[in-house]
């Protein structure tokens, strides 16, 4: 049994856990950046930019996210190839969309046809991260937008009274104060992000869902590479437990962080903390 669980393919399964963690580690800050951009755009005094920010957040929240995952992977890929096509082969005369085909010149292909396997994998992973960041950026943007509005208006008025410009007010007064208000929403979002990672499978990355299906299944009903029948159920049970443990641990950690941050704050939770001691 121990020998079976350490075969080469199982090792790839364990590696793919690393892939998931890496995805989380990259996506979380990237989504936060997108969200910050979206929230700042939605507050902007320049009308088209404000519309852009609001549409971005409203549109992604109104439609099933899985549709966006499927959409962005193709759309981003084609977008990159189209942009490279415009730059690299300006004298290409054929239409890019020929009926049901999307044709760009060979130099514009991404990744290059002769690139080694790992480039393909890294590129796929990169597109996946970007997709996650765009979708979760909208949700993070919504949280941050709410948090920005929760900062007491008197603070901003005071800043204006001191003669700060809009930009200064934003960076020196609004942004430092909004995090306390944003944290509950963001920690909620983190939980959701964890639970969204299995969707990587749909984006064509060989993640844990892929390996669980691969390893648990039998090659065909009669002959099998593996010394067992259909074990996919148990592999998915293991995944289920993995995710449960992961969310539980994050919950505990985030609760601690929240307790830390509310310490001494003039909010209801901070007040409760003060009374308890």
């Amino acid at each position, binding site marked *: 049994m121990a020998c079976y669980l350490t075969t080469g393919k199982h090792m790839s399964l364990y590696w793919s856990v690393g892939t998931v963690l890496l995805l989380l580690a990259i996506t979380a800050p990237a989504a936060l950046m997108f969200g910050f951009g979206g929230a700042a755009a939605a507050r902007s005094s320049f009308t088209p930019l404000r519309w852009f920010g609001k549409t971005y957040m409203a*549109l992604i*929240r*109104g*439609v*099933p*996210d*899985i*549709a*966006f995952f*499927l*959409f962005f992977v*193709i*759309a981003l890929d*084609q977008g990159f190839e189209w942009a490279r096509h415009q730059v690299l082969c300006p004298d290409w005369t054929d239409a890019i*969309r020929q009926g*049901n*085909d*999307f044709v760009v010149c060979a130099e514009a292909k991404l990744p290059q046809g002769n690139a080694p396997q790992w480039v393909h994998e890294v590129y796929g992973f990169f597109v996946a991260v970007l997709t996650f960041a765009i979708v979760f950026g909208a*949700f993070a943007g*919504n*949280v941050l937008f709410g948090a920005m509005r929760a900062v007491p208006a008197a603070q901003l008025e005071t800043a204006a009274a001191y003669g700060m410009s809009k930009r200064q007010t934003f960076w020196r007064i609004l942004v430092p104060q909004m995090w306390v208000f944003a944290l509950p929403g963001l920690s909620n*979002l983190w939980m*959701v992000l*964890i*639970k*969204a*990672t*299995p*969707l990587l*499978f*749909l984006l064509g990355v060989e993640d844990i*869902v892929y390996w*669980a*299906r691969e390893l*648990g299944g039998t090659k065909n009903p009669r002959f099998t590479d593996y010394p067992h029948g*259909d074990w*996919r*159920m148990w592999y*998915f*049970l293991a*995944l*289920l437990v993995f*995710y*449960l443990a992961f*969310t*539980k641990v994050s919950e505990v950690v985030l609760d601690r962080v929240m307790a830390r941050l509310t310490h001494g704050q003039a909010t209801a939770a901070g007040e409760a903390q003060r009374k308890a001691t």
Partner: protein
Amino acid sequence: MSCTQTILDYGLRAIGYGERLLPRSDFTLCQQFTLIGSGMIWNIYFGLFALMFGFCFAVALAMGKDSPRVLLRKPSEWFIFIFRGSPLFIQFFFGYFVFLSLKPIHPMFESLSAAWLGALIVLFCNTSAYSAEIFYGALKSIPKGDTEAADAYGMSGWPRFKRIVFPTMLRLAWPAYTNEAIFLFHSTTLIFFTGFPARQQRGDALYYASYFADKTFNPFVPYPILAMYFILVTLLIIGVFGIANKRLNRHLPSQARPKLRLRPQIIR
């Protein structure tokens, strides 16, 4: 082929009526609209039934979690934790393979591995857990005065629950429950992308949308169509739940009524 002909052919394709073969080339806009719309039948079916059955079970679960008896409380807590703590995507996979391994045991389990029943059961458990947590939160925030008044009138047991606890809980939970309903409909799109097979290409809206996107290699037509359908459904849900909200709060002065607000909760 005219558009009405297409609608006649493919309008009920998702549940197995009409033309058997899906269009293979020269996709028209009309075909995409019709087929994706016909896939919505499944999304609405799953969403509606999971919501209806889930509602009853969720109330029971919430009461169980609030119960002073350990035998009732612990199972409810664990149920809610398991279904809220793990991704729905994995739950679908796991559920499918469990049902698949039940299949040889008894012919009774035959239809469990088909999407119309198996996926509905998983979705039902999932939405029950999420709604139960919402209801439990509402249960905890019922004003103390209400229950004290009920005690003072000598109400207990069933009448107390029916006339005081349940209506107040529902009223407090309603805005959050509306969001739960919206995201439940959104998560129905996961079904045919997990283990559950779409027999004879009878899939849901996303299934057809991705079919078109794969065939034409052009995501810019089918996915916006899908998005449009889902925005319509979302608006419909907000409308219906808004009416219910109005009725639940009809005894309050109009300023004090809580407004429905769409807040994100997203993937599970």
